[in-house]
């Protein structure tokens, strides 16, 4: 298990030791959907966003 920082809000994100590359992890503080772009060392990046349209 490693503690990484969320690229969006710099909150602590727990990355499981067995996590594999391109796995999706969510930041518990800001909810950003992050992608584990590398595992050695761990690095997180914002996964591509699904646009939300709330209507008017």
């Amino acid at each position, binding site marked *: 298990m490693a503690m990484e920082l969320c690229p969006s809000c710099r909150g602590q994100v727990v990355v499981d030791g067995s996590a594999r590359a391109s796995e999706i992890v969510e930041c518990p503080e800001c909810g950003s959907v992050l992608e584990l772009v590398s595992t050695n060392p761990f690095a997180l990046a914002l996964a591509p966003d699904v*646009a939300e349209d*709330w*209507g*008017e």
Partner: protein
Amino acid sequence: MTTVAVVGGSGYIGGELLRLLLGHPEVELAAVTSTRLAGRRIDTTHPNLRGHTDLKFVEPDALDKYDAVFLAVAHRTAMRMVPGMVARAGCLVDLSADFRLRDSGVYQRYYDTEHEAPQLLDGFTPGWPERYREQLREADRISVPGCTAMAGMLALYPLAAEGLVEPDVTVDARTGSSGSGAAAGNVNLHAERSGAMRVFAPLRHRHEAEIAQATGLRVRMSATGVEAVRGVQVYCRATAKDNADESTVRQAYRRHYGDEPFVRVVAYRSGGYRYPEPKILSGSNYCDVGFAAEPGQVVAIAALDNLVKGGAGNAVQCLNIRRGWPETTGLGFPGLHPV
């Protein structure tokens, strides 16, 4: 009779246009389109119209020529449609966001989309009777303001026009669920949306651009969804200029709205309805505007039904002006109490 077509008739704004047009003594509703429901009866989607029409939706391609055509489709769809639509419509009334903003750069910033027909922007007259009445008498392309934008514009325009407030204003909108349309997804499932106070736009609500354009003010706007199906209320704060106080504000509203058929000044001393309340406006074309002031601050409040004065009703009011009919034609429903 004036022949009319509604494009995008299966949605919420479309349905409201159908209700108003079917009850309009001067209008013959000739065609209503839907891509998904072509061939289906209109009253299957809009059950309140049972017994009022046997019309069915038709494909948009099946449209002929009409004295007036109302576009009730989503933004982007509208601007793609408009170039091909102008030949079919004596008067074209668009309810989407696509032709509201003069500046296609502002449009791009707020809607995350490049404008596909910027050359047509200048040809549209704002569907804002209270300010553009004269121009609307001759307008053949009309762009109806957004629902919360209309409320903000009616609340703030007199204050801006009369120099009663400093340019920086904030507008906080509260809205019911129909403002999001019938195509909304999971977040608008009843069990999620019922009883909520959902801040869906803490900043930069799209309609702030329209209010800014309309008033010349610098507008910061938020929006929160509350429990209601119809209804919009805007609560606006501004810094008072000079000695703007409740008296000067009331006079400004009187001057601008005293003769208006659909704007009432609502700022009473007491009672549960002392300020603008959307629920008693459901189904009516009113926008109620009110105010309060204390040293240094002016508050303006407006309420309307997002589908009526915030959309379809306003569109019909514009058509009435264009065709030279009494402005209140087909728009007589006063609203209910209790409701």
